[in-house]
């Protein structure tokens, strides 16, 4: 019986010198035989979660258990053994080895697992035949179309018949006839003893799933009235990497917007006084907060849901957006934080 049990998972990594936390205290449980769909916009952590499940990215905190194995605690030979026998991954960018032809790419995990050459070859041929690439065995990835490369990547993920199959946007490069074939294949793989986890933003896949996990920060309630909020000096309004719910305007006092750097330092992006608003992009577009906001002295803010905020700006109230202290390294517009 193989179950996937993700508890309190947090993953942080460095991107452009800043700390990014695409996964923040995530819990997920998938039972044997289930097909789980990870839904979310770009940047919501789908690929990060799959990477952590595939044990190719070490989480910052939390645990992942697959069956009786605690994946997050694996090191050395045990880690290699997990990647070799327990998990197969269809990468979003295929990640085929360019110097190997289709057949050898599919055989690669079998060679790693020490399967005899003849058995490895016949297994790879059978899989490539099954996905309609029987006549492309000798072609290198560079000579294959995007859809064909994707199918080779699917065959490679299934080569060693792993109990956990992870697929990142498996329908992204396929036409509708190929999509149908892949959907049928993924559904048929989710049988007792095996788990299939698919990351996608393709909502056509919804009926396929036994379980759906939404990774985008949940949108705020539309009916919530504007809140007047008081902050003590140094108190955090929202933290970098957290989910977004409200847009804030400064009524009294000052708020600083800072971004946490990978080297442990913080960078001041803006200092905002009364009449300024900040944090609008996050809730409007379902993004995580790109910086931390905290009160400098005693501060009074009003928090609006995105809908109320739109009405407020549309009513012609004299509000100004935050201005960066210096040109930001990321193209995120003129706001202080998302």
């Amino acid at each position, binding site marked *: 019986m193989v179950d996937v049990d993700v508890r309190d998972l947090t*993953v942080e*990594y460095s*991107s452009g010198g800043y700390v990014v936390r*695409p996964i923040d205290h995530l819990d997920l449980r998938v039972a044997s035989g289930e097909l789980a769909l990870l839904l979310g916009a770009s940047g919501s952590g789908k*690929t*990060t979660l*799959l*990477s952590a499940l*595939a044990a*190719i*990215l*070490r989480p910052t905190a939390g645990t992942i258990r697959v069956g009786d194995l605690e994946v997050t605690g694996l090191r050395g*030979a045990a880690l*290699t*053994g997990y*990647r*070799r*026998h327990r998990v197969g*991954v269809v*990468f979003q*960018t295929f*990640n*085929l*080895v*360019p*110097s190997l032809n289709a057949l050898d790419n599919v055989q*690669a*995990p079998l060679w*790693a*697992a020490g399967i005899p050459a003849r058995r490895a070859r016949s297994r790879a041929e059978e899989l490539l035949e099954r996905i309609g690439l029987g006549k492309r065995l000798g072609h290198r990835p560079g000579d294959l179309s995007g859809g064909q490369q994707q199918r080779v990547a699917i065959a*490679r993920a299934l080569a*060693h018949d792993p109990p956990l199959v992870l697929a990142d946007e498996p329908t992204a490069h396929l036409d509708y006839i190929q999509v149908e074939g892949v959907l049928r294949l993924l559904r048929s793989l989710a049988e007792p003893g095996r788990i299939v986890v698919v990351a996608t933003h393709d909502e056509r896949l919804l009926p396929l799933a036994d379980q759906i996990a939404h990774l985008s920060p949940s949108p705020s309630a539309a009916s919530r009235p504007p809140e007047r909020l008081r902050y003590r000096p140094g108190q955090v309004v929202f933290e970098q990497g957290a989910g977004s719910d409200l847009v804030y305007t400064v009524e009294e006092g000052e708020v600083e917007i800072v971004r946490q750097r990978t080297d442990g330092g913080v960078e001041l992006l803006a200092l905002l006084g009364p009449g300024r608003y900040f944090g609008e992009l996050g809730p409007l577009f379902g993004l995580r907060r790109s910086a931390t906001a905290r009160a400098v002295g005693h501060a009074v803010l009003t928090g609006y849901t995105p809908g109320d905020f739109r009405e407020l700006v549309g009513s012609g109230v004299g509000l100004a957006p935050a201005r960066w202290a210096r040109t930001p390294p990321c193209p995120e517009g003129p706001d202080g934080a998302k």
Partner: protein
Amino acid sequence: MWLVAAGIIGSIVYLSVLERLRELAVLKAVGASNRSLLGGFAIQAVLLSAAAAVLAVGIATVLAPVFPFTVEIPALAFPRLVATAMLVGLVASVVGLRRAVAVQPALAFGGP
């Protein structure tokens, strides 16, 4: 001259290993162990270095008589060249590979 030759072989082998970082990460992700990657790539580097040295010996032997001035190559220089090339190829590939396999595969793919 020896140092220059060794430096060129070493840097080319080292850089070619780092260029294949993504390929190494893919192989790690599908279950190849660090040891097998180190072994496989080091053998490739040693064989390539040796082949290049043997080719250089052949070209030197052919070109020496047609040079406008006398070229004397000590008999020991040829085996020494091949041995040095293999050793430098081995050391450079192992140093490069140790750095390459220490990277988490998902980060080598350009960030998750």
